[in-house]
């Protein structure tokens, strides 16, 4: 038999906004449920190193799924007739429907980039349900700095341009192997999906007006951001932390926007203490 990785992948269908969505999910480990949300325009393959890390999976049941339209999850039937655009409501409904379908009890939720932003929304609105939230590269407010229409037009290759845009978000120190694996995921995204996700991350999902209402005594908040992140910069992360009383902040030196996939070894240094603290709480 081959030397299988411990990851098990399965499909199931959830209903979001009244539409059936066939979801692909991977999981590994036992213990405290740890739901992982991928970045805009990518998929749950970003979490493969966590899913294979025994130090984590001996205490956590790591669950990473592809959002509808992403990775191996299908878009809803009739997708051809609709432009994909991720709204805050749709994103929240998708994640909560997923968690409820899984019957998870008091899970931890960790998301990166747009996933990190969403965990802040959930820390406020689902404080009783989630044990805590971990926002990787997940400031509550960003400033757009390029025209999103470049990401989806017939005279520009969508996969190439998405990867070329986000390659700026990877730290120069990150190993080439993992840099290009991270970019490969972007090269494989569906047409217009990264653009549709950024509608949430850059516009609809702004949360700086509500983040001060998060009660970290009910739902602790961990913010971890990479030094080389050009969108969720260290400064924006610190600004976010100042709005959320009790949030715990880590600036990850030598890291970019994709800590779990661009430099999995270095990420351990930052995520292990957080998970250890959660386990001991």
């Amino acid at each position, binding site marked *: 038999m081959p030397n299988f990785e411990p990851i098990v992948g399965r499909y199931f269908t959830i209903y979001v906004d009244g539409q059936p969505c066939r979801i692909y999910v991977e999981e590994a480990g036992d213990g405290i449920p740890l739901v992982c949300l991928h970045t805009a325009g990518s998929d749950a393959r970003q979490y493969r190193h966590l899913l294979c890390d025994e130090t984590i999976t001996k205490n956590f049941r790591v669950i990473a799924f592809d959002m509808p339209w992403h990775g191996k999850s299908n878009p809803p039937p009739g997708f051809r007739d609709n432009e994909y655009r991720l709204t805050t409501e749709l994103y929240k409904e998708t994640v909560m429907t997923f968690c409820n379908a899984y019957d998870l009890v008091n899970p931890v939720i960790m998301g990166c980039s747009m996933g990190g932003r969403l965990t802040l929304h959930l820390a406020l609105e689902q404080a009783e349900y989630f044990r805590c939230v971990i926002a990787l590269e997940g400031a509550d407010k960003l400033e757009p*700095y390029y025209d999103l229409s470049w990401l989806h037009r017939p005279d520009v290759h969508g996969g190439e*341009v998405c990867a*070329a*845009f986000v*390659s*700026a978000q990877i730290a120069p120190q990150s190993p080439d192997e993992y840099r290009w694996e991270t970019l490969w995921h972007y090269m494989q995204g569906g047409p217009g999906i990264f653009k549709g996700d950024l509608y949430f991350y850059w516009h609809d999902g702004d949360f700086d007006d509500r983040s001060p209402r998060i009660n970290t005594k009910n739902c602790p908040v961990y913010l971890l951001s990479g030094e*080389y992140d*050009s969108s969720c910069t260290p400064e924006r992360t610190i600004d976010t932390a100042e709005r959320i009383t009790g949030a715990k902040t880590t600036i990850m030196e030598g890291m970019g926007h994709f800590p779990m996939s661009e430099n999995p070894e270095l990420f351990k240094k930052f995520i292990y203490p957080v998970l250890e603290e959660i386990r001991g709480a």
Partner: protein
Amino acid sequence: MVLNKLKDRVNGNKSLTERGKWVNLSFTFGVDNDDYLISIKNGKIIQIQKRNLATESGIFAIRAAKSTWKEHWRCIPKRDFHDIWSMLPKQLIRLDGDLLPLIQNLQFFKDLIASLRDGKD
């Protein structure tokens, strides 16, 4: 001039020139107040010349301060200087002209310019 090395480094990089094999254009590369025209044929640099006349122009322009390029070309640049697209939000770089061919071949142009990074010999 540091750009003297650019032609050899780019044209000696087979992977880069292969990825740029559809690129045939001249673009303007600005260093402080000086503009240079970099002409590319089938992914290879055929000429780099200082812009002397206003009528000499590339299809698009990428301009930054000399100190910005110097930092960009360090082996491990400081954050914000490590990639042209990370310079954008900090307004360390200015783009002008018809950006379509730049965007269509963005990773190629990023890698072409970064060819001058220390340690790339």
